[in-house]
């Protein structure tokens, strides 16, 4: 049994007991959503990626139980998540996004359980955001995260907000299975995962973050010590078809800065990290802006222009495609009753000209339904480049969700 499974099972029982105890309590509420997703690939899959399909249907459920008591000074949140995928056994998966107890005191709070944390300001990638592992089978944009076991204390004063984290228990990144798409040509054998630390997935990580607002500046400084959330994918020595790789999670230390200046309708953004791992160190940065044209052509529509430059000075153990890349995006917000929004963006690699294009649009239907469209296109793919594995994986996805 992996740490993740243990956490899930323990969590499930804690919650069951809790729910039994609290059925009569007031201020307890269920909310959440269920959704159906259809993903359609525009091209036949690459012959080297045997086993893939052109259409994928999947269903998700993400209910949330929330209860607070003690004059709202204490609360518990439980958010299980499950996805059933028609073809991909790895994408058919469950997770506890949150199972957390929170106690608030004057100017400080204590949190214990499984939870999710976000750090940073940029849109194209989230360098500074390090606490939660990516739920990569959900979407290749890396926005979906797995629940992370943590004990967090948070102190908020005039000089800012300090969060200190103890992170017991490591979550492995999820990867698509043999029938999954998009996926890397090599299958990631997550059962054979290796760690630098002898404590493996039981290694205890630590993180510290200071955050403050000084006028129009929002500043964050963070430090993390523990198991890298990004694995190095090592080829196995056995010749198999399809080829296989084993994830290796090294230990690392990372210092991060995130900065945003909010000046009128301009948001200036910067994230920098310095990471020490594998007897080496490197810098990576994202810098850019978001400019909003408010009330376009005398309507209620806002048009945001996002531009970010992505930099990474690694020459080995590259785990990302973003080395010297430019991201350009247009965000259209209609500000209507249905909260209609669209984000069109592309990221171009300056050296190889490989291009990743995406369109995300959403709209509410009635009071409880929401429809989302997502398209990802891979252009000018270099046969030796990082994105080659996604060469034939242009897709259009429709998501219909019911919220309660």
């Amino acid at each position, binding site marked *: 049994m992996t740490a993740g499974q243990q956490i899930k099972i323990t969590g499930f029982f804690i919650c069951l007991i809790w729910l039994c105890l609290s059925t009569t309590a007031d201020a307890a509420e269920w*909310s959440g*959503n269920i959704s159906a997703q259809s993903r359609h690939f525009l091209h036949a899959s690459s012959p080297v990626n045997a086993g893939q399909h052109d259409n994928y249907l999947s269903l998700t459920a993400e209910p949330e139980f*929330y209860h607070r008591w003690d004059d709202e000074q204490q*609360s518990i949140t439980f958010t299980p998540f499950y996805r059933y995928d028609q073809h991909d056994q790895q994408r058919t998966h469950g997770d506890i996004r949150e199972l957390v107890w*929170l106690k*608030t005191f*004057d*100017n400080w*709070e204590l949190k214990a359980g499984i939870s*999710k*944390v*976000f750090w940073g*300001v940029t849109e194209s990638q989230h360098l500074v955001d390090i606490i939660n592992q990516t739920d990569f089978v959900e979407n290749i944009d890396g*926005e979906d995260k797995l629940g992370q076991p943590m004990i967090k204390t*948070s102190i*908020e004063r005039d000089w800012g*907000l300090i969060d200190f984290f103890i992170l017991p228990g490591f979550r492995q990144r999820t990867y698509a299975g043999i029938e999954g798409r998009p996926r890397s040509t090599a299958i990631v054998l997550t059962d054979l995962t290796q760690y630098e630390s002898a404590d493996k997935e039981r290694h205890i990580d630590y993180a510290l973050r200071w*955050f403050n*607002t000084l006028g*129009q500046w*929002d500043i964050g400084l963070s430090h993390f010590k523990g198991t890298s959330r990004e694995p190095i994918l090592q080829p196995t020595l056995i010749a198999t078809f399809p080829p296989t790789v084993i994830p290796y999670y090294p230990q690392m230390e990372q210092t991060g800065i995130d900065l*945003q200046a*909010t000046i*009128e*309708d*301009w*948001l200036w953004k910067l994230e920098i990290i310095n990471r020490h791992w594998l007897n080496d160190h490197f810098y990576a940065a994202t810098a850019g802006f978001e400019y*909003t044209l*408010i*009330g376009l052509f005398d309507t*209620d529509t*806002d048009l945001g222009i996002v531009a970010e430059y992505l930099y990474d000075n690694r020459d080995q153990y590259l785990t990302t495609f973003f080395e010297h890349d430019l991201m350009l995006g247009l965000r259209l917000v209609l*500000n*209507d*009753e*249905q*909260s209609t929004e669209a984000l069109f963006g592309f990221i171009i690699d300056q050296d190889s000209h490989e291009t990743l294009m995406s369109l995300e649009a959403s709209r*509410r239907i009635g*009071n*409880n339904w*929401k429809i989302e469209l997502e398209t990802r296109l891979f252009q000018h793919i270099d046969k030796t480049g990082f994105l080659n594995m996604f060469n034939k994986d242009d897709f259009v996805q429709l998501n219909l*969700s019911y*919220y*309660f």
Partner: protein
Amino acid sequence: MNHAIQKLIISWCTILLLSVPVQTVADENKGLEIAKEADRRDTGYKDSTARLVMELKNKQGDTAIRHVRVKNLEVIGDGDKGMSIFDEPADVKGTAFLTFSHSLTPDEQWLYLPSLKRIKRISSKNKSGPFMGSEFAYEDISSQEVDKYTYKYIKDEVLNGIDCFLIERYPAYEHSGYTRQLVWVNKNEYRPEKIVFYDRKDTLLKTLNYSHYKQYLGQYWRAEKMHMQNHQTGKSTLLSWFDYAFKTGLNDSDFSRNSLKRAK
């Protein structure tokens, strides 16, 4: 004779020329005094909480509902701090806005997105944009400080049987969607009864009617219903306020970044 008429005309003209600015200054002062008195009477509640139901209606009569919880903290000498937490529609449940409003310098605003656990500092320049797709702009629902406008008293007028001062006010902050607003202020209670908004081209845009006023703590008047009619689009929004509470003991730590994350 001619000379005398000339003198008379000149003196009358002088009086007129002098009296126009004098009268204007007097009207401006009276307008400002009314606004100050209204502000004085609404000061000292320390903090407030309330539940808000918004009913958005389009031209065809289709409705959409929003449920919001609102918290306010009075800040003496500056704009108030405010937090709005969304309960409905369900897809935005837990989304929260934190605003530190200021009289003349830009407000500071943060948005919390619960699905991403992400706090975003957002531009406060967007004062004229619609709040949650409604006919209320951000500037209509933000804290109303005296310094945010300049004023002019127009006349006394009876509105629906209520004795009112009719004043005109002009936004003194940047990026307003309005050139001016006509405000009917209740003479006895110094509370707004009606506001008419004129857009940037000085064309009639919206009318806001306050009704079902209730007094709290023997001093503070709050309208339970606020109806905004947009004359240009035919759309309207009705705000219904419930469960008003004052002096509930909120403080700065209830309007912090951490409180934004645990707002739901």
